[in-house]
């Protein structure tokens, strides 16, 4: 096993990986930008090294800077987390060339699965169902002929694409030439690569993915599915497992296809196969493969009892997966909600600020993977996802109730989050019935606004009592009747920053 690992990431995933390493007795090195000098992950690791200014390109995306730190501090492996450099095959190759272990798949497998078209070709060859499409030529005439065979409506997608960029829905043949042109232009601007391909449009699909693992000894298996149909602008917000749609037969068939895919590309370490499932006929199609740990990995851990980060380390160290496919079972029901620092009342635009007070919900079956705590600053530089709330219930109904409870008890004062929106989502009857499709949010929550309820008397009373008691606690004289002095922004309440910092340190895990 490794002696010292560098974690090339930040936020909750860096915290998650550092904790796993510490439990395994592995020393950790955190890297940070100037914006994260006081962040949780830098405080938790045994050593922390500054790698640059806040912009990711000069810090968390600077592979050379990170590799330099790893070599200088005598690390023997690098864990990339998700995002940033995690799917960068060139970086993985550089890590290996420097004599370190890359905790992830081989650069070759990352390249095969990294391009949507080469992944489609590899999966088709392995017998994994792919969405009917065409990618063999960029010629206009060939594309038009292929479109006729695929049928309408169809999708024009960018070969180098992601996040919906360069994507067009084409309802009928006459619209195709214009759509090809505009998709190419957008793809060229976004990715510097104008190539596009065609795919049949599956209306209102479910997004269901399979967690897979391969090791260096030829073992390959899956750890069942995660359903991630609840998305907002192509971003997942609620995930669960088991999927309410799958039955044992469909699960078995999708699982077998996933394992076939792992074997076909000689995949080693953790990966995820994303599928679209047509709820109309329950047919499934390969969408893409993520060659890294996923944000939503905790729900799989909750129902299978496998610590995926520790398994990643074991497999990267050359050990075999210590269980078989037959031993993998889903027990009970897990749901994850992603907490974003964004303002639902302001069009879900990012919200930043200092976390003045964070109190995480605790209780049986409640897990919080957070990258921030009291006193931390959420800045404009990085992803707005600041924490994940994960629950494990006896069954789906119990898990939904538990999530409802836990969302209510997650206190995050000082910044605006999407918690009220998550509440509304899991309270919606379509979600409650387990019937949400990928257009669920778009369809039922267009223009959604948080309820502008008036604060109850007790909330106002608590605010006023806090002014009085917090002020008195720092030795300030009580404010005079009349309200003017009490309304002073430099009132005694504001003078307690020193104490607040103390409280923050005390509540760190």
């Amino acid at each position, binding site marked *: 096993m490794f002696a010292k690992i560098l974690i090339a990431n930040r936020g909750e995933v860096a915290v998650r990986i550092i904790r796993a390493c510490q439990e395994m007795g592995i020393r950790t090195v955190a890297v940070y930008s100037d914006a994260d000098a006081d962040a949780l992950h830098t405080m938790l690791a045994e050593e922390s090294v500054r790698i640059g200014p806040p912009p990711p390109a000069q810090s968390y995306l600077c592979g050379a800077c990170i590799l330099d730190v790893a070599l200088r501090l005598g690390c023997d492996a690098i864990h990339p987390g998700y995002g940033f450099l995690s799917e960068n095959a060139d970086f993985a190759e550089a890590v290996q060339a420097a004599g370190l272990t890359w905790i992830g798949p081989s650069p070759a497998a990352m390249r095969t699965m990294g391009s949507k078209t080469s992944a489609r070709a590899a999966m088709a060859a392995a017998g994994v169902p792919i969405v009917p499409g065409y990618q063999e030529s960029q010629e206009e005439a060939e594309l038009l002929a292929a479109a006729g065979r695929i049928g309408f409506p169809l999708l024009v997608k960018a070969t180098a694409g992601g996040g919906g960029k360069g994507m067009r829905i084409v309802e009928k043949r006459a619209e195709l030439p214009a759509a090809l042109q505009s998709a190419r232009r957008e793809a060229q601007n976004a990715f510097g690569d104008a190539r596009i391909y065609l795919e049949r449009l599956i209306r209102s699909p479910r997004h269901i993915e399979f967690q897979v693992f391969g090791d260096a000894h030829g073992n390959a298996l899956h750890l069942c599915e995660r359903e991630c149909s609840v998305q907002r602008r192509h971003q997942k917000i609620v995930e669960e497992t088991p999927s309410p749609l799958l039955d044992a037969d469909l699960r078995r068939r999708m699982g077998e296809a996933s394992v076939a895919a792992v074997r076909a590309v000689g995949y080693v370490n953790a990966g995820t196969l994303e599928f679209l499932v047509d709820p109309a006929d329950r047919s499934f199609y390969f969408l893409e493969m993520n060659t890294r740990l996923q944000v939503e990995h905790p729900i799989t851990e909750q129902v299978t009892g496998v610590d995926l980060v520790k398994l990643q380390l074991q497999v990267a160290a050359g050990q075999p997966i210590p269980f078989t496919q037959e031993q993998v079972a889903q027990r009970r029901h897990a749901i994850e909600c992603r907490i974003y620092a964004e303002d639902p009342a302001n069009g879900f635009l990012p919200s930043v600020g200092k976390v003045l007070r964070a109190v995480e919900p605790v209780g049986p079956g409640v897990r919080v993977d957070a990258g921030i705590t009291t006193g931390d600053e959420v800045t404009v530089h990085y992803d707005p996802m600041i924490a994940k709330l994960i629950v494990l219930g006896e069954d789906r109904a119990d898990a939904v109730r538990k999530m409802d409870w836990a969302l209510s008890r997650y206190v995050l*004062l000082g910044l605006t989050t999407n918690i009220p929106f998550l509440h509304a989502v899991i309270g919606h009857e379509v979600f409650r019935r387990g019937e949400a499709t990928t257009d669920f949010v778009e369809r039922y929550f267009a223009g959604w606004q948080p309820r502008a309820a008036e604060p109850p*008397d007790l*909330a106002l*009373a*608590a605010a006023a009592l806090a002014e009085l008691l917090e002020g008195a606690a720092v030795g300030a004289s009580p*404010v005079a009747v009349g309200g003017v002095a009490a309304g002073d922004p430099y009132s005694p309440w504001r003078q307690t920053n020193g104490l607040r910092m103390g409280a923050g340190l005390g509540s760190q895990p």
Partner: protein
Amino acid sequence: MKTEFTYQVGDEIKTVTIEREGDCFQVTVGENRYQIRAQRPEHGRLNLQVGDRRLRAHVASDGLRRYVALAGQTWTLERPQPQQKRRAAAGGPGAGSLEAAMPGLVLDVLVVEGEEVSQGQLLVLLSAMKMELRMSAPVAGRVAKVHCQAGQVVERGQVLVELSDG
């Protein structure tokens, strides 16, 4: 001794009056009177008792803003602006000014002072948390003043560009 606090709720000003009697407080919110037992076991936390109900409240403040988490809900309250600040705000930027719709990093400023711009013209490109936002001219006019530059971090509501009638 009575102490009074005021909070802005929508267009309304709510007044809370507190009179201390030991660790018990006579609290008046608008017309309603409550007897509340309150203790502050640690910074940012209050233990409250109203009749037979005991509650734990979490509180924080930032400038004039007050946060209260109580019984599974979080409330954001505003203390009213002091008189002189209110006047200053009233004399502030006009409807023709461009304010940042979100906190963010200024990626690019596409206009210079003195330039004529049309309604909807892209003036400033903002970025925050991997999201780009195009800030366009709310009205046609002339750029009177540019208040930001590329690379600068701005707050939500901060004036980026001032426009005057052409």
